[in-house]
Each structure stands twice: as C-alpha cells, then as structure tokens.
C-alpha cells in the first residue's frame, strides 16, 4: 500500500515535471506578448506589471487586417485535411483489415511506406504537378498535400484497430442486411473513435504549424496560412517581437479548441469501453 502510494507520487512528480518543461516556452510567449518591447528584452521571464503591460503586439497584429483571413485559411486547411485523412484513411484501413484479397499484404505495406519517406523530398515534383493542374495558390493544394502526408500513418494505426473490432458484430450486420457502407459508418467507425481521435491529434499540430508547403505552394496573400502570415513580422534586420509573440499566442487558441474536441472524443471512447 505504501509502496503503491510512493509510486503514485513518483509518477505524478514525473508527469508534473514534464508538464512544466513542456508548458514553459508557451508560458514565456504568453507573458511576453502582454509586455512592452523594452520590458521583453530587459526581463524576459518577468510577469507583466502595470508599468510593463502593453497590448501593442495584439494591436499591431489585429491592425494588420488580413490576420483573420490567415486564421480562416489555416482553419480550413487543417479541418479539411483532417476530414479527408480520417475518411480515406479509415476506408482504406477497413478494406485492408476486413477483406481478404490478392495483394492485401503488399497494399498494406505500400500504404505504410509513406511513414518512412518524408513527403518534403517530393516537393519539386509536387510543385510541378500543382502548376500543371493550376492548383498553385489555392487552399486545395495544401489540403491535398496534407491529406497525402497524413494517410500512411492513419491507415497503419486504424487498420490495426479495425482488426480488433468483433467479426461477429460485422457479420450480424450482414445477416441483418446492412450494406458494407453502413457496417463501416454505423458499426465500425464508432468503435474505433479513440483511434480516430489519436490520428487526428497526431496530424493536426504538424499541419497547423507547417511553414514549408504554404510558403512553396500557396504564398499568395489571400491563401496565406497563419504561420506564413506571421512571418511578415520577422524581418532580416528588425523583428517586431511584440507582434510575433502576440500572433503566436493567438495561433494557439484554435488548435487548442480543436484538441479539446478530439480529446473529449478520446476520453468518451475510452470510458465507453471501460463501463462495459
């Protein structure tokens, strides 16, 4: 009993320490975004006080005008990519897990190959394709690339989970006359919801934070994403730190909201299994 309590304290200690380390940079960004430029450089770790408090960073960011557009673009790209990754990933995973066909193994390996090969290696080819199809400077270009980037891991994780869904349940659906699509959407998907949430969280952050593909495929003003938009404050000689920190602080909010949505699904999935 005492050993168990000791272990619990040790485990919580380790987790708390990790949380502090992980949240520290975020904390520094947040406090400094509310300070004057001078205060940022004089004492980066100090909390804003009445003297150093300033909203100048946020004012700059919001005055920049296009910032809501950047937000919107990032949001559209992230949500649409996640939607397609989950939809197509789950469908491919279901086919691989459920149906016995020639080349099933090979197909699974082929789809998983993308986990090992970074998609950025193909940037030039992707750019050429996008130019050829006229998708450069559209949000579609980004959505397509991110979907391709996220699919391998999604298929890999989801097919593993789908194999665990009871065969009897799927067969009961077939005996009752459900189509394969209804079996997939109504019976199987709800049961792998925790895995879907995991895949969504894994994919969401890299897509939201990506600078590479927006810079190359969609640098035009009207399709700029938030990360790319924030770069205007970082100059070669002068960097508007107030604005950069404020922009970053604001950028955390939507992704945090999305995370809340998915993590709630994740917890719901876990508890529904535990109660049974």
């Amino acid at each position, binding site marked *: 009993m005492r050993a168990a309590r000791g272990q619990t304290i040790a485990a919580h200690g380790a987790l708390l320490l990790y949380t502090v380390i992980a949240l520290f940079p975020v904390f520094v960004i947040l406090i400094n975004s509310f300070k004057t430029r001078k205060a940022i450089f004089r004492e980066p770790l100090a909390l804003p006080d009445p003297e150093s408090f300033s909203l100048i960073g946020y004012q700059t960011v919001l005055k920049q005008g296009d910032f809501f557009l950047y937000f919107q673009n990032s949001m559209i790209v992230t949500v649409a990519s996640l939607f397609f990754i989950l939809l197509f990933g789950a469908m491919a995973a279901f086919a691989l897990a459920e149906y016995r066909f020639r080349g099933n193994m090979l197909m699974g390996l082929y789809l998983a190959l993308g986990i090992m090969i970074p998609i950025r290696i193909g940037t030039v080819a992707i750019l050429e394709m996008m130019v050829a199809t006229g998708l450069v400077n559209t949000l579609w270009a980004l959505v397509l690339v991110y979907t391709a980037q996220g699919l391998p891991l999604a298929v890999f994780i989801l097919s593993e989970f789908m194999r665990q869904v009871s065969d009897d349940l799927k*067969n009961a659906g077939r005996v009752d*006359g459900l189509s394969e699509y209804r079996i997939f959407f109504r019976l199987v998907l709800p049961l792998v919801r925790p895995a879907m949430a995991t895949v969504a969280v894994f994919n969401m952050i890299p897509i939201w934070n990506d600078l590479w593909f927006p810079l190359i495929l969609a640098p035009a003003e009207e399709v700029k994403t938030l990360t790319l938009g924030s770069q205007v404050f970082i100059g070669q000689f002068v960097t508007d730190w107030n604005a950069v920190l404020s922009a970053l602080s604001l950028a955390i909010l939507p992704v945090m909201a999305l995370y809340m949505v998915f993590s709630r699904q994740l917890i719901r999935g876990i508890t529904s299994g535990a109660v049974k």
Partner: protein
Amino acid sequence: MTALVLEGVSKSFGKTQVLHDISLTVEDGEFVVFVGPSGCGKSTLLRIIAGLDTATQGRVLIGGQDVTDVPPAKRGIAMVFQSYALYPHLNVRGNMALGLRQENQSKAVIDRRVSKASAMLSLDDFLARRPAELSGGQRQRVAIGRAIVREPKLFLFDEPLSNLDAALRVNTRVEIADLHRSLSASMVYVTHDQTEAMTLADRIVVLRDGHVEQIGTPMELYNNPINRFVAGFLGAPSMNFLERSVDVPTGAVLGIRPEHLRLQDGGQTAGTVTHVERLGGDTNLLVTTGAGERLVVRLFGQHAIEVGTEVGLGFDPADAFLFGADGARLPAAAG
C-alpha cells in the same frame, strides 16, 4: 420441404482444405447440432450456410432454393453469435428491429413481432436499454430475440452459450429447447460441448478435420458409434479404451463406457484406485489397471472407497465396443 441441403460442400483457404465434400439434409422443424473439437470446421460450415463465407465447391439450398450465390440477408436465415454481437449504438428494441427495417417491413409488423419476441424472452422491461446496460444472459436473449423477429426459415446458432457461466448456460439451454418446440423452427447449432449437443439435438453431426464422421440421433451415436473418435467424443466422462488390460485381438482396442463398468471380484480386469471424485449423485473412480492403463468407473450413488483400494472390474460384453487400429469399429465385441 427440407430446411437445408448441403451438396458436396468443400472449402479451402489457400492450399489448406478445411471442409471435405460435406453433404447433409436438415428436415423442416429439425434441430441439428454440429459438434466437434475446435478447428474441425464446424464454424466455417455454419458461416458458409449463412453466406458469410463462400464454399470453394458445392451447393447450399435453404427452404428448397439454391442460395449458393445469395447474400446473407436474402437467404431467409437468422444467426445468433457467440459474442452476442449486439449493435452498441441501438437499444434493445432497435437491435431487434434493425433487420426488419432493412427488409422494409411496416411499422405495425415490426412492433408486433418485437413485442411478441420480447414477451417470449421476458425482455419487456429492457426494451429501452442499451446493450452495455444488460447482463450477459440478457444480452444473449436479445441476440436470440433479434433472430426470432426475422421469422427465418432457418436459425443458425454459433456456440451461443460459451460466453455464459455454468448455471446460466443450463437455463439458456432449456430456453433454446423451449424455443425450438414453441416455434417448431428448423435450427442448426454449432458447439464443441458434447452435453449441449446431446441435450438439444434431434440429430447430431460429428465433424473432425473437415470430414463428417457420423450423423444420427444422440442415442444412435451413443449406442452405436461408427468409430473410436465418435465413441470417445460423446458421453461424459468419456469412454475408456483398453488394449492390454483385457483380452482383445492383437491390434484391436476395446471401448467401454465408465457407466457400464461395475465393481466385481473376478471380473474381466482389475486395478488400483488412484483417485475418487465424489459428486453426491455419482462417484467416479480413476483406476490404474495391472497393465498400467488408466480408466474411469462411474458408480451411481455414494461409495466409501478409498484411494489405494484394489478393485476388480467387470462389464457386460454386450456394452463393449471393439475398434481396429485405425479407429474403425470392428463387428463384434470381445469379452
């Protein structure tokens, strides 16, 4: 009309053949049990009947119609699964109604059949509950109800009792037997449990390694097994097989059921009691014979016999079976 006809059904997975040329007829209203050790192909055969798997060769006829290429939902069957397989997102009523809704039955028909089935299985109080809120026995009754409402030509049961605890298993077994009587429906039931097979079946099909070993009523199989496998598989405790302890032709094996052995000085064999199982109604003796063979003796009632006692054992030669070295039954039993 015949409920089910299998004609030369074979099934291979890649190069492994799991079912060999199985032919079988189930009459209308008959309760047929497929029994055999795990891996004998009985579940695969049931899946082929249901249409969840396709036979490599052969035909399946249900209610006189060739359904070999018909999808499961259109075969006029209903199936009860080992793991219940209830739809987790639907309540009990929804679970039972789903198949009927897929058939585009009218709401009146659905309501009538669901309430009839729920009354039959005493599920009335649970209709609004989700499967997660039910006990194991209730879930299995819902699964059975889901089959009943379809009013199928043929019921298929895939080891429906193996997830239940012992007491509940006996009750549910009786319920299934009652159900068979009141619906007078044709049923095919798969199990590895010989007690279930003996108690429920009109006819038993014993399978081994994808071959049908023997088909017959429970008592036919018990009294007249065609080979050593069937003789040993049915009956509990299972049959004793003796080569050296009794007088048999060379290479042959004598089979005698534990309940046919009696304590008798100067009987056909003798041995030392190595273990006693007292069940109250029965007493099972484990005896090692002089020739080193172990056998089980089932005595009715309670007996004060201690471990280490020397006992003589006798039996009526008419109760004994003789099997050849290959397991096949030999015509006459020796004494």
